């Protein structure tokens, strides 16, 4: 399992799940907050990836 994007998605899923469960009590709010966090993780990672593109190691 060395697909970087898949690992990013799995990591984001678990962190979003735990944070949403921890920080909201109402199930509907948990789902909304969890989806927001998950989307934020993915979008931020892709945006940072593109920003770093001109600077290869």
């Amino acid at each position, binding site marked *: 399992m060395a697909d970087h994007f898949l690992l990013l998605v799995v990591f984001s899923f*678990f962190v979003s799940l735990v944070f949403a*469960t*921890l920080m909201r009590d109402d199930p509907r709010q948990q789902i909304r907050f969890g989806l927001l966090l998950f989307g934020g993780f993915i979008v931020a990672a892709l945006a940072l990836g593109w920003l770093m593109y001109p600077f290869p190691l």
Partner: protein
Amino acid sequence: MRVSAAERTRAANPFLVIALSWVIPGLGHLLLGRWRKGLVFVIALPVMFFIGLALEGRIFPFQASDILVTLAALADLGIGLIYFLAGPFGWGAGKVTAVTYEYGNAFLIVAGLLNLLVVLDAYDVARGRK
């Protein structure tokens, strides 16, 4: 006779809740009658930790000469019982040449840190703050 979550919260010793919540992620919430939250933590955090192990991540030892390794060890320790089972079972030796080594470390460290947040949340619930 059913016991309500509020009655469980009143009956629970906050320090026992902290200890149980740390040893097994989510157990404190289950003790306090927060079944749904407890089940999510009981499943999600150990799964995250075991994914980290499967990705060849390392469970860091306490090493006074290297502060970063010690901080990583503290984060790993946050997962509780599994940290202590790792030694006897030979888990978490880490394979630094593996492509997924750093990903594994991220899963292991973050699972431990998230469980520390879960412990603090369980303490707040036990003290009646939530």
